[in-house]
């Protein structure tokens, strides 16, 4: 078993290289990169100032950047070398935990990401807790009262939650509760007066006040799958021989569930945990965009729109590593909670 996980850990390396090299090559060959962007900006600037300062700005006013400047820029961003060479340079830097600098803000990429991580992580962890808190009891009740009115009615709710993508739920919530009823703010992680608030308690309250709608949207997107997983696995276990034996021996139904069936039904839920990791920390950029939350997802989205490739790659590195470790973690969870599972 240990051997298996060591092999899995080692396989992370080629997979990671495969992922990053692909995106690196894409970012390299697409037009509209940082240099084109700067040339365009210089053009704009010269057009605005050109008329007024013809005598001063002979070099700036010369329509665009000249050859030398472009070459300097290319050297600065490593665009002058072949793709694989600059990929190698980039990879060596990443191994030394240096993700480079943003081409737009010239801040270190890692600092930018570090600022955003807690925001996404807050939503991710809260979502996970709320989802478990709803799904496990709901799945339990649906399994115990299978085919009852309660089961059918709640199924419809769960199906609707499953069918609509979570960002659309976000828009619905925004329209109803923020725009029309004005019960909740339109977006942001916290309000404008956050810095001036007196107590920590008030600040926490403010964060949750702003988080209510996005959290609902996140939960709506994830509770359906989890509820059905819980229900189905509990039903499977209730039909298993060991529960039938327990009941045949005269054990009360409730006890048979809590002592025997419930334990085993939580296995798939536990194993699902590892899959969540990247979502927990990465967040969904669609929801972050709708509610204007400065998380990691929104950062990735904005950097693509703005062609800020060091950040694009930085976010990719973080999310790829999280995902790869998350996959292994969920296998470890499977092995940990279920001794019957053997990985070879």
């Amino acid at each position, binding site marked *: 078993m240990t051997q298996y996980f060591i092999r899995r850990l080692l*396989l992370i390396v*080629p*997979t990671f290289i*495969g*992922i990053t090299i*692909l*995106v690196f090559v*894409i*970012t390299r060959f*697409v*037009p*509209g990169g940082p240099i084109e962007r700067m040339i365009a900006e210089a053009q704009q600037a010269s057009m605005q100032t050109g008329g007024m300062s013809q005598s001063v700005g002979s070099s700036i006013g010369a329509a665009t950047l000249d050859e030398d400047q472009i070459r300097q820029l290319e050297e600065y961003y490593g665009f002058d070398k072949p793709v694989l060479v600059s990929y190698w340079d980039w990879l060596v830097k990443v191994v030394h935990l240096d993700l480079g600098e943003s081409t737009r803000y010239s801040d270190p990429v890692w600092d930018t990401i570090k600022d955003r991580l807690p925001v996404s992580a807050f939503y991710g962890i809260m979502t996970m807790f709320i989802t478990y808190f709803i799904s496990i009891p709901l799945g339990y009740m649906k399994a115990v009262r*299978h*085919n009852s009115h309660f089961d059918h009615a709640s199924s419809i709710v769960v*199906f*609707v939650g*499953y*069918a*609509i*993508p979570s*960002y*659309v739920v976000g*828009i*619905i919530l*925004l*329209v109803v509760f923020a*725009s*029309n009823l004005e019960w909740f703010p339109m977006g942001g992680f916290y309000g404008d007066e956050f810095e001036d608030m007196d107590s920590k308690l008030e600040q926490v309250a403010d964060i949750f006040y702003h988080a209510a709608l996005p959290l609902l949207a996140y939960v709506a997107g994830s509770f359906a799958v989890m509820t059905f997983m819980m229900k*189905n696995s509990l*039903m*499977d276990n*209730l*039909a298993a021989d060991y529960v*039938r034996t327990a*009941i045949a021996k005269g054990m009360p*139904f409730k006890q048979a569930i809590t002592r025997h069936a419930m334990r085993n039904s939580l296995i798939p839920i536990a194993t699902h945990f590892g899959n969540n990791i990247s979502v927990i920390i990465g967040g969904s*950029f*669609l929801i972050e*965009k*709708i509610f204007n939350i400065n998380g990691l997802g929104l950062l*990735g*989205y904005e950097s*693509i*729109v703005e*062609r800020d490739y060091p950040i*694009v790659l930085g976010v*990719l590195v973080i*999310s*790829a590593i999280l*995902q*790869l470790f998350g996959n292994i973690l969920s296998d470890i969870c499977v092995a940990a909670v279920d001794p019957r599972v053997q990985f070879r």
Partner: protein
Amino acid sequence: MMSLFNLNPLTIKKINRFKSIRRGYYSFIIFTLLVLLSCFAEVLVNSRALLVSYEGNLYFPSYGSIIPGRTLGLGYDYETNYRDLQKKLKDSGSGFVIMPIIPYNPYENDLNDSSFPPFPPSFEDSHYLGTDTIGRDVAARLVYGFRTAIFFSLILLVVSYLIGVSIGAAMGYYGGLFDLLFQRIIEIWSNIPFLYVIMIISSIMIPNFFMLIVIVLLFGWIQMTWYMRTVTYKEKAREYVMAAKALGASNSRIIFNHILPNTVSIIITFIPFSIANGIIALTSLDYLGFGLPPPTPSWGELLSQGSNNLESLWIVSSVIVAMTLILVMVTFMGEAIREAFDPKKHTTYE
């Protein structure tokens, strides 16, 4: 292959079981009807008239080339404005015009002199769901957007299943180096954040309908491939395959005549969820502005317009209602099909 189309008793039983799940069965009927109707959207939602009777001649302008205004007694050579013509002929009595239910096409801007769009829903102007921010009819754009989305996702489904089934079956059946190679490729591929790459690609070029399908397909084939691999792998180990082999059947015969028919009923259960995913993928991309180029009518574009203009509630609410209805219907269908083709019987206790 013929066994796929002959209805054997088992298949009939499955179909009957599907029909008995009313929620899913009615969803299936309504959904199919909507898709069929959307094929003829030009006669339901169009700025061209269904039928024009002018000076004893009958015209059917819905399909075909444009009829210049001069032909119908109007003083211009560009396409007839049938809504004006309708009023005019009504006054003069020299003929009549029958317009479609929604007399607007999804591209035209219906502006008036007194105010600025978006206009709220009004039955007088036949803008049943109002207009968007540049005066295009929301209902018309919803209908044509539905058609785009549904055909996008149907084409995507067929191609991705073709790729997935063939590669997946080959991986599972032949195993060995081929399997290992594709396993690695899939591992790398599935760990790439797919929306991310799609966004990068479509931010550099403006994709058209088929290019967008190819782009989404780049990542869409994985799920089916992986699934088919597992299923084929399992089926291969069963006795009937061994028996076929012992009888000297060739590999292709075993795959096409024996293994594939046994996996069809499971593949079918995936179809509705793939349809929903296709619609969601296109809508999300359009919402973010990385999908089909404007002015293509699309739900995602309406959604983003609506959420940026929350005071014009009719835009966002009509697209959300439409989307919810369709996706919920597809989900009900999927659940019923899964229940009918792959039933889970549970012991329950009294």
